[in-house]
């Protein structure tokens, strides 16, 4: 069954701005799906329409077979939304926020209290249950929004930039938690600016730009199309003197006395780089990708889409 099916979805805001230009998107049940795109591409509008916070102009949306136009109540029950902005009452306590949210979904109060304890403990917020939400740190507020979205036990969890402003340790613990609930059967749709996050968590991906889907495939397949990668190598020569290697057949840039940046085309492989450096008595101390692999593809896809448009316009 499709967790989400979007057909020819369009949104034109008052004033004429066309945020979505007829997008098609399908997400399978159980998937961990990334929706990526630059700022203003249409991600939040898409999420807003699915969660009925934004009125669509035309097109159809269904969640687990429930149609947005004709079965809105059933559709809403399937979805848990973690929005980008903090949108809870800052003066309510952590427990009030989650228990009330469950109540809006018809969960009886005593059940809501039991579930609140369960999810707040899982997300490390139980000790803060009687604190006003405004007293929480940024990371705790993010986790509070996840707990709130889970309390009515949705089948589809939509997270709009869930780890924005969260430190790396907390971000990784949130990733673990999301992976865990995905394994338990909850379908997850994620938008993020941390492409490393999408690469490590998600199985499938759609890239949206200027209100159009420019790519929709599996992460594996997308990464396989990456033809060139840039590596940064930290080098060591003899003594403290500067290392100035020469690499035949590769584009190379010297960053400082002991660091170089090398562009490697997939067909070339890295062995040739190491062979040439060894021949020049240069040791490679460490090596890393200049950018996340998905980031390189993302930038490439978005730029390609824009240059195609300018060419068509010219």
């Amino acid at each position, binding site marked *: 069954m499709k967790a989400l099916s979007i057909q020819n979805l369009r949104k034109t805001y008052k004033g004429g701005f066309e945020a979505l230009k007829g997008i098609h998107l399908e997400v399978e049940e159980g998937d961990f799906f990334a929706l990526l795109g630059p700022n203003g591409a249409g991600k939040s509008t898409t999420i807003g329409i699915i*969660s009925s916070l934004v*009125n669509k102009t035309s097109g159809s949306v269904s969640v687990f077979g429930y149609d947005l136009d004709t079965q809105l109540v*059933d559709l809403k029950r399937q979805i848990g939304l973690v929005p980008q902005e903090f*949108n*809870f009452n800052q*003066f*309510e306590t952590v427990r009030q926020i989650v228990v*009330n949210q469950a109540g809006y979904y018809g969960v009886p*109060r005593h059940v809501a209290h039991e579930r609140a304890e369960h999810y707040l403990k899982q997300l490390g917020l139980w000790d803060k249950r009687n604190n006003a939400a405004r007293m929480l740190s940024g990371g705790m507020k993010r986790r509070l929004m996840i707990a709130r979205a889970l309390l009515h036990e949705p089948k589809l969890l939509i997270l709009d930039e869930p780890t924005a402003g969260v430190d790396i340790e907390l971000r990784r613990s949130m990733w673990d938690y999301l992976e865990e609930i995905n394994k338990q059967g909850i379908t997850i749709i994620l938008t993020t600016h941390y492409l490393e996050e999408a690469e490590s968590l998600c199985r499938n991906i759609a890239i949206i730009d200027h209100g159009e889907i420019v790519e929709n495939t599996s992460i594996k397949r997308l990464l396989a199309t990456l033809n060139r990668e840039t590596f940064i190598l930290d080098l060591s020569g003899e003594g403290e003197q500067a290392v100035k290697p020469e690499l035949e057949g590769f584009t190379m840039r010297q960053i400082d006395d002991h660091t170089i940046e090398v562009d490697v085309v997939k067909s070339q492989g890295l062995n040739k780089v190491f062979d040439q450096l060894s021949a020049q008595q240069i040791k490679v101390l460490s090596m890393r990708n200049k950018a996340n692999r998905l980031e390189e593809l993302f930038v490439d896809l978005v730029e390609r889409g824009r240059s195609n448009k300018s060419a068509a316009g010219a």
Partner: protein
Amino acid sequence: MASSFNLVALKTIWIKECTRFLRIWVQTLVPPAITMTLYFIIFGSIVGERIGDMSGRPYMEFIVPGLIMMSIITNSYSNVASSFFSAKFQRNIEEMLVAPVSTSVIIAGYVGGGLARALIVAVIVTVVSFYFVDNVSINHLGILVLTVILTSTLFSLAGLINAVYAKTFDDISIVPTFVLTPLTYLGGVFFSVTLLPGVWETIARFNPILYMVNAFRYGFLGVSDVNISAALAVIVVFNVAFFITAYTLLQRGVGIRS
């Protein structure tokens, strides 16, 4: 199933609303007690003794129902207006919009909050009035209760409509300042409308608050400047009109959905 779900959602909104105004009781429950005490002292004790009787009752006794009604009107209005606008402003209204809560339940929950605050304030003001009036009698309990509920519902709905249109906090104080307060003062709280000369009495009878104050006074003292059936009919008609307006606005997502 649907009805029990709606009941849970309604109870949740109502509890949330009551928790809100009880949490800030110094701002919501204390000021009406102080304001009304001042009205009783100044208009009742100091000025009232020189006025004598009004509609066959001592002036202090005459103004008690009007002052209670004034508190009910302002508190039900401001409770819903400020709470709904704050929810819009902080965007926590989205918590309800993403959930399968029906528009009628949202309206009923907010109105229930306004009604609860208005009733608590009414009790506080009535208790305060005991200090100034020797004998507070109730002549028609049914009409009194009905008028309180209908009036509070009406002004809760009005506050909700105001909050839907409001874009800033200033917008929710414009209506109380420029419309509600003048209409309340001219609605027969402090005087009998029959004292007004000719055309002014006719004009005053177009003020809907006059009917609410008089219906409530009738419940207390058994005296009224207007026909009670007509008064209740006016309040019911306004309730229906305001509910339809509020329902249509929320259903269309005016001010809350893009």
